[in-house]
């Protein structure tokens, strides 16, 4: 799904998809529950988060230096490092390596950066077969879709749909049994691994002091992608670094527990350069492509630099009540959920995703779940500020807040405004509520009653109320009390 429509329209079609909503809720519940258990088992979760935040903040604040060190170490270990300013440059680097090798087939493991630069599309256009090897990504690829969750890409697919996709891909007599389906993928993908010319992986962390690329997976596919083809290309966001090996222990605790509630993923792979002299497997060449693509713009920004601390665990998706209702595709962006609603309009600062920061009730569950304490809630508010400051928010909204300013910045005008509302609401009110609102209020009353303005405000009651108090509150009435009362009684009579 593209971002040509707005998030509201895309959300609406998601809201009508019962399987999707049920699947998203089920998955989110499962991951939330497992995360809770595994963080409680570890203990001191807040201390771990604080340590994670401190390490990420230090790394990003010194990213130039750590990136230079990382590149040197990768080269020292025999690898090549490429720097890509944007998606197009990253694609060009990959294509030129592929052309140089005369590559005909590429195997990939899950990588959000590869989604960000749409590498599959470009490789296929160049006549190169690309095969996703993560089970979920493979399913999504066969369906010609994009991932709907950072960690569980095929969250939105039923097993019957998966069986049909696998059958279309050549599977024979497949049942909807998980083992059978996974078995087909294993057998099919094994052939692809062994035949591929190039393997492309992402990079969960790069260790600056050793030039090591660290990958976390559960299936073991990233190891095969990295080990079996003669050329291994790593696509990494430039912010993915950790200064030292020791720091990795913190993130080996934070990432899997936050993502899936596992104490550790089945595979944690550390790759330092290509195969060594005498090695019989491992890639002959290792290329690390470091991508900026809008990231450097966040550096030095007091409010948004911390978005680069993100470790892509997906914990914010799993607790987000909006994601829970609409799933990932409704965001229309590569990165969904709260982190997507913040990161996407920061990386791509045009109109396309300007509405994503509004897809939040600002409940703050995301920030609370974040293992490196990114204030996502605050960032969503600040992105709205940024948007409002451009003057491109809807005219109706602007005039509404203009009216709010006029009415609410002074208590006398405020009373007058509500006095008027008391009059205007009369045709709509039944039993103190409004069942069917008009204008913007109808978006509310589609699912719920709206309250009516009370016959007398608190401030109009205050004068009488204070007379009945026991404590020394009772005292002389101010003119304000009288004003409020007269005004409201006056408008009632009007």
């Amino acid at each position, binding site marked *: 799904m593209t971002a040509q429509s707005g*998030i*509201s329209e895309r*959300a609406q079609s998601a*809201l009508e998809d019962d399987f999707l*909503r049920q699947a998203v809720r089920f998955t989110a519940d499962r991951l939330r529950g497992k995360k809770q258990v595994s963080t409680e088992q570890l203990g001191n979760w807040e201390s771990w988060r604080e340590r994670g935040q401190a390490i990420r903040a230090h790394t990003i604040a010194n990213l130039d230096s750590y990136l230079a060190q990382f590149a040197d170490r990768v080269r020292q270990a025999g690898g090549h490092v490429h720097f890509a300013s944007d998606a197009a440059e990253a694609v060009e680097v990959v294509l030129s390596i592929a052309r140089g090798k005369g590559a005909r087939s590429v195997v990939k493991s899950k990588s959000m950066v590869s989604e960000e630069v749409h590498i599959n599309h470009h490789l296929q256009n160049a006549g190169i077969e690309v095969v996703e090897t993560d089970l979920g990504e493979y399913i999504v690829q066969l369906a010609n879709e994009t991932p709907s969750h950072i960690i569980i890409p095929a969250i939105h697919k039923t097993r019957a749909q998966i069986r049909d996709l696998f059958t279309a891909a050549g599977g024979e007599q497949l049942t909807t049994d998980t083992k059978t389906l996974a078995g087909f993928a294993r057998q099919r993908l094994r052939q692809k691994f062994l035949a591929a010319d190039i393997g492309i992986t992402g990079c969960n962390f790069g260790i600056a002091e050793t030039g090591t690329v660290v990958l976390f997976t559960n299936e073991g596919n990233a190891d095969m992608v990295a080990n079996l083809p003669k050329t291994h290309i790593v696509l990494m966001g430039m912010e993915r670094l950790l200064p030292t090996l020791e720091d990795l222990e913190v993130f080996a605790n934070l990432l899997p527990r936050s993502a899936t509630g596992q104490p550790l993923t089945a595979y944690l792979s550390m790759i330092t350069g290509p195969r060594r002299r005498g090695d019989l497997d491992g890639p002959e060449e290792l290329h690390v492509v470091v991508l900026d693509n809008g990231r450097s713009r966040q550096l030095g920004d007091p409010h948004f630099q911390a978005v680069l601390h993100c470790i892509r665990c997906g914990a914010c998706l799993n607790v987000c*009540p909006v994601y*829970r*209702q*609409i799933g990932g595709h409704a965001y229309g962006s590569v990165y969904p959920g709260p982190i997507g609603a913040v990161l996407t309009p920061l990386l791509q600062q045009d109109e396309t995703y300007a509405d994503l920061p*509004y897809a*939040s*009730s*600002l*409940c*703050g*569950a995301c*920030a*609370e779940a974040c293992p490196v304490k990114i204030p996502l*809630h605050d960032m969503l*508010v600040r*992105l*709205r*500020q*940024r948007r*409002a*400051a451009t003057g491109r*928010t809807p005219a109706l*909204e602007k005039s509404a*807040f203009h009216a*709010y*300013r006029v009415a*609410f*910045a*002074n*208590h006398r005008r*405020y009373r007058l405004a*509500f006095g008027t509302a008391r009059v205007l609401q009369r045709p709509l009110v039944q039993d103190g*509520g409004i069942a069917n609102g008009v204008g913007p209020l109808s*978006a*509310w009353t589609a*699912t*719920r*009653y*709206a*309250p*009516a*303005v*009370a016959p007398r*405000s*608190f*401030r*109009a009651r*205050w004068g009488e*109320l*204070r007379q009945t108090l*026991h*404590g*020394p*509150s009772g005292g002389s009435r*101010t003119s304000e009390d009288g004003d409020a009362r007269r005004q409201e009684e006056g408008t009632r009579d009007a």
Partner: protein
Amino acid sequence: MKASLFVTCLVDQFFPQVGEAMVRILDRCGVTVDFPPEQTCCGQPAFNSGYTDEAREVARTLLRAFAESDVVVSPSGSCAGMIRHWYADLFADDPALREQAEAVAAKTFEFSQFLVRLLNRPDLGAYFPHRVTFHPSCHGSRLLGVRDEPLQLLRAVRGLELVDLPYAEDCCGFGGTFAVKMGGISGAMVTEKVEHVCATGAEVLVGTDMGCLMNIGGRLRKLGQPVRVLHLAELLWEGMQAADESGVTQ
């Protein structure tokens, strides 16, 4: 102790009985309550929509209203959270106003927080013989850190059966202008919240924020569900009066 009431625009104009219940409870606790009439709104509706200038101008009504107050107490965790979490930032460009904003922020408390932490009065001697479930509002708990205080107050109420709300910490879908701007998503969220409320079999839903409660209550009413929706102050005041009448003692 003296305290100024920040009643919030929502309670002032739509739910004045909440403000009254709160004043009566505070009065019973020996607090001298005043109501500075210059107050209107904390500015959050505009602020959360990105309209900072509008929010700032409205927020100044509170800086003026509460300049002389010892303590400010409010029936909304969300509005108190707005003041505590954002006011210094909102007035960051003007040192004098920023100082006033920080001063107001430092002395602002949500109602249950004020009772439990400042007055140390978790037990008001109330009697409320009903099955009750509690929705913790997001801003109160996450922005302001008020988590256990409302529960302490409820647990102390005689006759009250407190049942856990499943997915209690999930947002009800209110989110201010979000409820209108993203009405479909908001509607789906409140629909799920109401399913959980009904699953508890509670007669009464209680909360600490009228924004959330009018949202959940509006959905309950639309469905014809006979669940009473009460602000914590309303429940406690009703329970204190019931205790007076029935002679249930502390």
